[in-house]
């Protein structure tokens, strides 16, 4: 088991490097000189100082060296800051792999710090949506499978197909119009103010702000998981061991809950990593709709401000979370299904 996990961890490494290459290439090919954005700060407007900074950050180097410096830093090597051909002082980067994601150009603060500040709100949103999505999805899936070929099944199918075909942000807007503007039941935004005012979470207030975004975000997951559960259940119902259980004279309820369901849910449960990734991406849009103070808004703003270090950092962090999610999925699979372990 532990060797399997170790092997699986090692497999994640090339993927992670691939992601860093993508992030780096995006920045490299983006228009504009990053150092000018950094140096736009009035205190650093001096061209000589700008040049020194460029060298200290390694931005005068060819792309391959830039990539290596970005990854592992250049504070271990001496650089030639004044351009006289003599190396004189150490570089200023510590490197991605050593926890330094660089400085945000707009906020003038470490990227890692900024992301860590915003990530709790995003995780709150995505994990709540994940729980709701799985809970509702599995419930509806079971309901549809048990009532196969009846109107219940049809109704759930219509719901899932329509739920998938709607742009989520549009549903969010419609819900805001109905529930916030017309009926004034739920707040349409303002989560940002709560976190600012209280510094922490007021549970009742927070919950009120969460209802709409979490529901809207989880809709895709509900639709997908319910269809998935339904298919798996219907397939398991056909399997020999279910027939055996039936012919032993077990009640339908026992067959469903103790024999069919656990087997049907294995593939559904192992999908959790992908589901989380999808939700993280979906949160980017939903956060904008509801003015949610999370990472999504940070990324969108960073992209518009051409805040390259922040954009690269966010991509790497998001991908790292996604890779971790897939890893957990795989490990879960081997834990739940002994057949996989034997292969």
């Amino acid at each position, binding site marked *: 088991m532990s060797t399997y996990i170790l092997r699986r961890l090692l497999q994640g490494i090339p993927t992670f490097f691939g992601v860093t290459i993508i992030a780096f290439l995006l920045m490299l090919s983006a228009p504009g000189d990053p150092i000018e954005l950094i140096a736009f700060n009035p205190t650093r407007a001096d061209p000589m100082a700008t040049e020194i900074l460029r060298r200290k950050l390694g931005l005068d180097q060819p792309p391959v060296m830039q990539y290596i410096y970005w990854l592992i830093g250049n504070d271990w090597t001496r650089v030639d800051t004044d351009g006289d051909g003599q190396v004189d002082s150490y570089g200023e980067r510590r490197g991605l792999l050593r926890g330094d994601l660089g400085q945000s150009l707009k906020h003038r603060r470490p990227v890692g710090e900024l992301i860590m500040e915003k990530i709790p709100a995003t995780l709150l949103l995505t994990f709540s949506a994940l729980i709701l999505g799985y809970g509702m999805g599995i419930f509806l899936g079971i309901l549809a499978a048990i009532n196969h070929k009846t109107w219940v099944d049809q109704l759930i199918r219509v719901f899932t197909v329509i739920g998938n075909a709607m742009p989520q942000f*549009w549903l969010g807007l419609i819900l805001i119009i109905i529930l916030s503007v017309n009926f004034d039941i739920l707040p349409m935004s303002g989560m940002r103010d709560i976190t600012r005012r209280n510094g922490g979470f007021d549970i009742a207030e927070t919950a009120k702000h969460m209802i709409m975004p979490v529901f809207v975000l989880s809709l895709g997951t509900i639709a997908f998981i319910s269809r998935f559960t339904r298919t798996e259940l219907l397939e398991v119902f056909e399997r020999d061991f279910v027939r055996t259980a039936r012919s032993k004279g077990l009640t339908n309820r026992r067959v469903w809950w103790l024999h069919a369901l656990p087997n049907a849910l294995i593939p559904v449960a192992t999908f959790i990593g992908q589901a989380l990734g999808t939700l993280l991406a979906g949160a980017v849009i939903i956060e904008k709709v509801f003015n949610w103070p999370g990472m999504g808004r940070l990324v969108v703003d960073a992209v518009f401000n051409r805040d390259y270090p922040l954009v690269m950092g966010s991509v790497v962090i998001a991908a790292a979370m996604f890779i971790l999610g897939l890893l957990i999925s795989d490990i879960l699979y081997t834990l739940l299904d002994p057949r996989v372990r034997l292969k």
Partner: protein
Amino acid sequence: MTTATTQIRLGAEAPKKTRTLWQNAARHILRDKLTLAALLVLGLMTLLCVLGPPVVENVLELDVNRTSIPDKFLAPGAAGHILGTDHLGRDQLIRLLYGGRVSLAIAYSASVMTILIGVALGLIAGYYGGRVDDLITWVVTTLSSVPTLFLLLIAAAFWTPSAELLIVILALLGWVGTCRLVRGEVLSLKEQEYIAAAQAVGVPNFRLLVHHILPNVLPIVIVTMTIIAGNLILVESGLSFLGVGVQAPTPSWGNMLTDSRSYFNIGTHLVIWPGVLIMVTVLCFYLVGDGLRDALDPRSSWRLAE
């Protein structure tokens, strides 16, 4: 004499009529009312968006880009503006039609491009295996471990693309799923005996891929393409909502919703209509995809409509 009798006997034993997979599928779809309806709606929508704008412009004497501030936020049904006007006093109906042109053009062309890239790489990776496969698989896993929306957002914001460039970007970032699917199919097809037979008689690799493997992955590819087209409309709308998709003043169903958040008190109709059109179109693409899946895969046990 003998040859004549054999022929007659063989003729009697042969099945009266053989149908190809495609003929079967066509018959299946003709009987599938829901899929037919979805196809019809899609066709009508496309026709309306392609042919409609000049007609509507002439009949109602409108111009898609004419702004008129005094006429802003007119409700649907106002004189000369069947679906009302937006925050700049532009007619919503004509903008929806022009927007549909853009959104549908993106859906159709980007899905075709996505499929072309995905199928080509999937065939190569699955058939040749080895180093090539390792490389393609690595790119696939890497690309699919970054949320695509992130990459699209960044690419779209850095280069502020035209609709044409957006299509290319969407295709370049969207082929991953198709590639993985096709690769899997090819891997299992490769084990089939008729492939071994073809290899044994010396059919060259390229011919084998195009004549013997491609036709067998085509059904699943066509189904995927329909679903992708639907997804693309959603992706375009999401990107436009974030402000990085199709840029104003060119209307698209997505960017017509961009500013809607700031004026839903006065312009509810501006939020509803583009969204409804997006939903209906995507729904039709999905339904056609489901219908095709049933029609093209006789083994498919999972039928959504029953």
